């Protein structure tokens, strides 16, 4: 996909400290807007939603002293572009080892863009049961929605163009940590 394409970094959106501060703020917002943390559960969307959801649960535990269950969702089987993408995407495991019925779920992902990933995530979640409520948390909302989907909890909203890419790097996966705006140049 990026074979013949050059990618240039335009600017840094979040530093490692800013990511940490943003997640802390979002953790507080979740608890505040949920009237406590008791029915809450976080669902991290593979891949980068997973470490984000774990960090949010850690933050909530540190100030609200509640263990919020964390699950991992792989959306591969729910994608709507399988008949057009190139190589067949590899299916990863979904690990949600608590009942989602009547839970207050927060889907966690790194970037909200077209909304299609979140549509797929919701389909996946509803195959597991009937949650009481489903909300969405993203680190970055970059616009360009193709579906009527919005996030309840947003780390940072930015304006982007179609050719730009928001690159989230997290130390659990990428061995460095920051969020960048990059551009593709032909």
């Amino acid at each position, binding site marked *: 996909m990026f074979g013949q*394409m050059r990618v240039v970094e335009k600017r840094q959106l979040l530093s490692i400290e800013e990511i940490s501060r943003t997640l802390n703020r979002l953790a507080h917002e979740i608890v505040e807007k949920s009237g406590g943390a008791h029915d809450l559960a976080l669902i991290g969307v593979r891949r980068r939603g997973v470490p984000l959801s774990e960090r949010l649960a850690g933050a909530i535990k540190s100030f609200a002293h509640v263990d919020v269950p964390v699950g991992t969702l792989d959306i591969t089987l*729910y994608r709507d572009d399988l008949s*057009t*993408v*190139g190589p*067949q995407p590899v*299916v990863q495991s*979904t690990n949600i080892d608590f009942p989602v019925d009547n839970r207050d779920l927060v889907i966690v992902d790194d970037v909200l863009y077209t909304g299609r990933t979140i549509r797929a995530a919701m389909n996946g979640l509803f195959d*597991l049961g009937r949650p009481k409520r489903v909300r969405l948390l993203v680190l970055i909302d970059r616009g360009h929605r193709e579906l009527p989907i919005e996030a309840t909890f947003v780390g940072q909203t930015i304006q982007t163009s179609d050719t730009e890419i928001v690159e989230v790097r997290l130390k659990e996966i990428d061995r460095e940590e920051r969020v960048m705006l990059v551009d593709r140049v032909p």
Partner: protein
Amino acid sequence: MLERLPHLLGIESLSREQIEFFLDQAKPFQAFQRHPLKKLATLRGKTVAIAFFEASTRTRISFTTAASRLGADTMALQAEASSLKKGESLMDTVRTLEAMKPDAIVMRHSSSGAPHFVAERLEIPVLNAGDGTHEHPTQALLDALTIRDRKARLEGLRVTILGDILHSRVARSNIHLLSKFGAGITLCGPSMWVPREVETLAPQIRRTLCIEEALEGADVVMTLRVQTERIHEPALAPEEYIARYQLTPERLRRAKSDALVMHPGPMIRGLEIDDAVADGPQSCVLEQVTNGLAVRMALLYHLVGGPPADAPHPAKD
């Protein structure tokens, strides 16, 4: 990431990496079998032809259910009800199915090599669901998945296969698979079912006619169905098979205490396997059935999902 296979015809031609890929891909589908809502839309709009030119219940139901849980539709051809009985040739039957535009064909046939013959002539993926005495690749994959789940590896395990090795496509596919992982394989049964030639199937094969010797120290014991249609072959009465080769609790004690007992089904209780073993704590028979669904879903997803393997991908940058 593995390059997409055009067909699944047998285990012999697969690499160890390809087998590992499919075993890994079956894992998410194993978890899926526990979902309250067992219906995906992943293969919605796709059609899988299930063409069984030989009687089968469990494999046919397993493939049909796997396709259906992925959201695909199936069209079924059953030997008993088909025009084969009226003398139509295999290729004519298959071409007729193909003209109804399925996206893949799952095929069982009593002739070894029939799926290969068909695969060379069709544009769509062919999945071998058992051909004659040749291969039954999805059975070997589900067996390997079951073993790997319980033993955490295949390497270095001692696997004993009991029964009619010569006529068993299950045994053949398992031998190919296990030998690629360096498992030690012992084949055991009456001499006419375990001729010397079976030793040439793969390296590291041990052959013995004595069940007690075969079971000594085994990690896995696979019993095969005694194909009663063959038992009347040169002088072997069922009573004699039971006396010499039935897997009983006493005999199983020679294997490791945590040895797995497997059977591809259908089991004939009281013939190749004793009730107490079939229902005992070491038996994985039902786990094998569930794993069969997971393996077949993973394979259908791999072979049928996405654009045709040779189609140009829509321009996307």
